C-alpha cells in the first residue's frame, strides 16, 4: 500500500527538532496558510476534514473548536493533553520527542482558530525527555518569531507553556487535568459546564490530544479533501498512530491510514512472537474491551468498526496477547491499575474498582466461587454510567469483556482451584 507517513515523517530526523530544520522539511506551511485565512475558515477546514479526537473519545475536532464562545468577557485557552497515561499508549511521546514543532504548529493553528492567546501543554510527568525536547523547541520557536507577540509576523500573539503532571492517570481526564493545571488536587469536575464554556481558570478552553493537534498543520497545508482521502469512510479519516505492544515481534508506534485491518497491524510488527498463535487483543488501551483474536483478525481499526465489534478504538493502543496469556490474570492486573488510579472522589469508581481488583485477584489465586462471575458482572453494571467521570467506565471495559466473552476462563479457574496457566514472574513482580 502506497501510504506515505504523515505524522511520523520527521521521526528519526534530528534536524526537525529545530525551527530551521523543521521548516526545511516543509514545516510551518500549515500555520502560514492558516494565518492567511479567517479564524472561522480554519475551524471550517478542520470540520471539513472529518478529523476526530485522537485522545480516545473520537469527538469531531472542528466541532469542539466551534463550541468556544466567540466573544466571551474572559480570555480563552487551549490546553493540549499530553498526559499520555493509558497503559499501552506511547504515540504522543514519539511525536513530542521526535517532532516537537509539528505539535507547536498544531497548537498555534488551533489558538488562531479559536482566538486563544495562551496555550498550555500538560505533559505526563514521567516524560522527561519529551519535556526537555519540547521546551527546547518552544524556546527556538520564540526566538524565530513562531511564538510570542506576533506569530510569523501576523500580529496574532501567542504564549505557550509546558506544564508537567505529577504521576496521576486521572489528570489525563480533561477536567482533572484542568484542576491540576490550576494547582489543585487532580480530580475531575462535574460536567456540565463543559470546558468549552468553563475550562481552565474559569474561562472557555479547548482541550485536544497531541496527535489530534499534530494532524492539524497537514490539514491546513494539504486541504481537507486530501485528509478525507485517507481512511475508511467519511467518519473515519486521516492518518493514525497505532501503539502496538504485547506479544509481538517488534512492538512500537506505527502509522497507518485509519481503519487499517488488525491483520495488517500485526503483520507490520512481525506477527505474534515466538511463533505462537494469537489469543486475544485489546484494540484501544487498557479501558477497551478485549476481543478474541481469530474472530476479529480483519477488523478495520477505526472508531466505528471497533465500536461495532463491542470494544473501542480509544487511543489505539493495541495490546496483543498470545495463547499463553491468562486473561483473568491480565484483567486482574488492569483492574489493579484502575483501582490505583481512581481519584477516589466518586463512590462507584472508588469502591467498585477496588472490589473488582480484589475479586479478580482471588479468582486468579484459585479461590473463586461459582457466583463470582455474576457478581463481577453486577458490579460492572453498578459502576458503568454511574461514575462522575469516564474512569469508572474505563475500569469496567476489560472486566465486562472477560465476563461476557471469556467466561469459560473464569469458570476454569473456579473449577480447578488454580490458574490453568503457569505463573508469570512479570505479573508477580509488577507493581504499579
Amino acid at each position: 500500500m502506497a501510504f506515505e507517513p504523515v505524522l511520523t515523517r520527521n521521526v528519526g530526523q534530528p534536524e526537525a527538532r529545530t525551527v530551521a530544520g523543521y521548516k526545511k522539511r516543509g514545516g510551518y506551511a500549515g500555520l502560514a496558510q492558516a494565518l492567511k485565512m479567517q479564524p472561522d475558515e480554519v475551524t471550517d477546514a478542520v470540520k471539513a476534514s472529518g478529523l476526530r479526537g485522537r485522545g480516545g473519545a473520537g469527538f469531531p475536532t472542528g466541532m469542539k473548536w466551534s463550541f468556544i464562545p466567540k466573544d466571551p468577557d474572559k480570555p480563552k485557552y487551549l490546553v493540549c493533553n499530553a498526559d499520555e497515561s493509558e497503559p499501552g499508549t506511547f504515540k504522543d511521546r514519539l511525536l513530542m520527542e521526535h517532532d516537537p514543532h509539528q505539535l507547536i504548529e498544531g497548537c498555534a493553528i488551533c489558538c488562531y482558530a479559536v482566538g486563544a492567546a495562551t496555550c498550555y501543554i500538560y505533559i505526563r510527568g514521567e516524560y522527561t525527555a519529551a519535556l526537555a525536547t519540547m521546551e527546547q523547541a518552544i524556546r527556538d520557536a520564540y526566538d524565530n518569531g513562531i511564538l510570542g507577540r506576533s506569530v510569523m509576523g501576523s500580529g496574532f500573539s501567542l504564549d505557550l507553556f509546558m506544564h508537567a503532571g505529577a504521576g496521576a492517570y486521572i489528570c489525563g481526564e480533561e477536567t482533572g487535568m484542568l484542576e491540576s493545571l490550576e494547582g489543585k488536587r487532580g480530580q475531575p469536575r462535574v460536567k456540565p459546564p463543559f470546558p468549552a464554556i468553563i475550562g481552565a481558570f474559569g474561562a472557555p478552553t479547548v482541550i485536544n490530544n497531541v496527535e489530534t493537534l499534530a494532524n492539524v498543520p497537514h490539514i491546513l497545508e494539504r486541504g481537507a479533501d486530501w485528509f478525507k482521502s485517507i481512511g475508511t469512510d467519511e467518519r473515519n479519516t486521516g492518518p493514525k498512530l497505532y501503539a502496538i505492544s504485547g506479544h509481538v515481534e517488534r512492538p512500537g508506534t506505527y502509522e497507518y491510514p485509519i481503519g487499517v485491518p488488525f491483520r495488517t497491524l500485526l503483520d507490520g510488527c512481525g506477527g505474534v512472537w515466538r511463533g505462537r498463535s494469537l489469543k486475544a487483543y485489546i484494540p484501544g488501551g487498557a479501558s477497551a474491551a478485549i476481543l478474541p483474536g481469530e474472530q476479529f483478525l480483519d477488523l478495520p481499526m477505526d472508531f466505528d468498526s471497533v465500536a461495532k465489534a463491542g470494544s473501542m478504538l480509544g487511543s489505539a493502543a493495541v495490546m496483543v496477547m498470545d495463547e499463553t496469556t491468562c486473561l483473568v490474570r491480565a484483567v486482574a492486573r488492569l483492574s489493579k491499575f484502575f483501582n490505583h488510579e481512581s481519584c477516589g472522589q466518586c463512590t462507584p469508581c472508588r469502591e467498585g474498582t477496588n472490589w473488582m481488583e480484589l475479586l479478580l485477584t482471588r479468582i486468579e489465586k484459585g479461590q473463586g466461587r461459582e457466583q463470582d462471575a455474576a457478581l463481577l458482572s453486577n458490579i460492572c453494571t453498578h459502576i458503568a454510567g454511574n461514575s462522575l467521570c469516564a474512569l469508572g467506565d474505563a475500569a469496567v471495559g476489560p472486566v465486562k469483556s472477560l465476563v461476557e466473552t471469556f467466561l469459560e476462563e473464569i469458570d476454569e479457574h473456579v473449577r480447578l482451584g488454580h490458574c490453568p496457566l503457569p505463573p508469570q514472574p512479570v505479573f508477580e513482580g509488577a507493581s504499579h
Partner: protein
Amino acid sequence: MPKVTIDDRTIEVERGTNLVDAATEAGVQIPHYCYHPRLSVVGQCRMCLVQIDGMPKLQAGCSTQVMKDGMVVRTDSPEVREAQKGMMEFFLINHPLDCPICDQAGECGLQDYAFKHGQAFSRFQYEDKRTYPGRERIPLGPNVVLNMNRCIQCTRCVRFTREVSQTGELGFFNRGARTEIGTFPGKPLDGPLASNVVDICPVGALTSTRFRFAERVWYLDKRPSLCTGCDVGCNVTLEHRRGQIRRYKPRANPEVNDFWMCDYGRSSFERYYELPRLAAPRVRRDDRVVPASWSHALEAVHQALAGGGRTAILGSGNLTTEEAWLLARLAEAAGPAAGTQAGETPAVELPLAVEQGPRWTIPNPSGGITGSGDTTPNRRGAELAGFSTAAAEGLLTGTATGYDVLFVADSDFGSPAHDEAAVERLRGTARFLVVMGWAETPLARAADVVLPVATHAEREGTFVNVEHRLQRFETAFPPPAQVRPATDALTDLLAFWDEGWRGARVADVFARMAAAVPALAGIEFEELPAQGVALATGGAVGAGAGPSGGSATVHTAEPPAGA
C-alpha cells in the same frame, strides 16, 4: 419559572434549582450524601442518581438544574433503584458496620439509606475490608474526632472549612480506595466553627469530643431553642434526656445562623451543670436566711417593694423580653413614693448589667452575623422593656448607694455576682436585697430573699438579637419541684398589686407587652414565624455596639484560639 415533573408531580421552580431541591419542593426525597445546600456541588457520592427523559444515562440530581420547561424526572424507576442499591452496597462493603459503638447510630445517613435503599445481606464476604490502621480516633482539633474507617469520602467537611468557615484546615489526601480526610501538619481544626463538620458529616466519621459516648441519640428529646452564648441568637435544637441537656445542635435559620453555630455556643449549656442550683426560695429570719415557701418569699418581696423607698431592679441580658417587661411593670407598681412630683426621677430604677466577651461571627447567606460582644443573648430585649445599661454603672462600682431595696433579677448576671468583694459592695448599696435566678452564687448567698427560677431550658419566651430580630424559644422540660419560671413568679408578685396578673401565661404577658411597646405592635407570640421577626429599631440601640456601647462593666473573656 420553569415547570418540572418529578415522579408524576409537576411543580414550578426557580430557574437553576437543582433536582434534589426541586424534588424536596415536590414532596419527593432524593437520597444524597455529598450535596448540602450551602456547599459547592461536587456530584461525587452518586447517591442522588435520577432518570431524566431524553438522557441516556442516569444523572446526578444535585448537579442537574432545571433550566427550562418540560423536564421529566423519575426517582423511583427500576434503573434508579438498582443504582441506589449498588451505591449503598459500595458504601457499605468497606464500612466497619460498628453501629453498636458508633455515636452516629440513630441519626446516621448510612443506616437510614441502607434501610430504605439497601439490601439485607452482603456479597462482600471473601475479601478483607479496607481499614485505616491507626486512624480510628484521630483528634482533628480540640472538639472533633475522626474515625477514618467510617468515612464515605463525601468531602462535606473539607468543603465546609474551605467555603463556609474559610479556614481550610481539612484536606482530601491520597487517592482511590485509600483516599482519606485529614488536617495539614501543624494546623489543627480549631476554629470557632469547627464542630459544624460533625453536624454535616452524614456518617460517624466525625464525632464531637464533648458528646462522644455521652448518650445514644434515640433517648434524646429535642426542642427548638435559642443559644444563650451571645447576642447573635443562633437557633438551636436543645437535646436533653430527662432534663439533662446533652447538646445544642444548630437549627437552620437563613436569617440568623443559617445551618451553623460556634463551638463556644455549643458548650454554653454546660454552665447549668457547673454552678450549684438554687433549689428553693429563702427568706431572712433574723440573721439567718432560711428555706421558705414561695408565697412567703413573694410576700416578703412585696412588702419590701411596697415600702415605697428608693428601689432599683438590676436586670441582665439573660432575662427573656417577657421577664424584663414584667420587672419593669413591677417597678411601675412599686412606683415612685406617694407624693412624688410629676417630672421627678422615678424612685425605681431599671439598671441593666451587661458584660463583654469575644465577638462571634456566624456565616449566613447575607454575609454573616456578628455579635456585639455581649455574653448574654437578650440585652436588646431588656432595653426594649425599659432597662438601661447607663443606669447600672454607679450601682456596680459602688458609687451609688442608699437604696432601700435592690432586686437583682439574675443571680448569675455577670462576674460581680461571683466575686466576694463585689458582692459585698453591692450588698452595701441597699438595705434589702432580693436575688432571683437559677444559680447559687455568692450574690444569692448575700440576699435577704432568694427566688429560685428556671434555667433557659425550663422556660419559654423571646430574645431580641444583635440585629433586633425577635425570636421565640420553647420550654424543653419543666423545672425542679421548688423552682418556677421567672414569669410565673413575677406575675404572682404583680398580683399583689393587680389581681389581673394571676395565672398569666407567657403568651398573655407577650400580648400585653406587644400592646404597650410600639416595636412589637401587631406581633403575636403563638404566631411568631420560625425565622423570627425583624423589629423596627427606632434608633434606640445601634446594632453591633462595641465594647464601649454603654455597658456597665467591661469584662473581656479569654479570646478563643483563632477567634
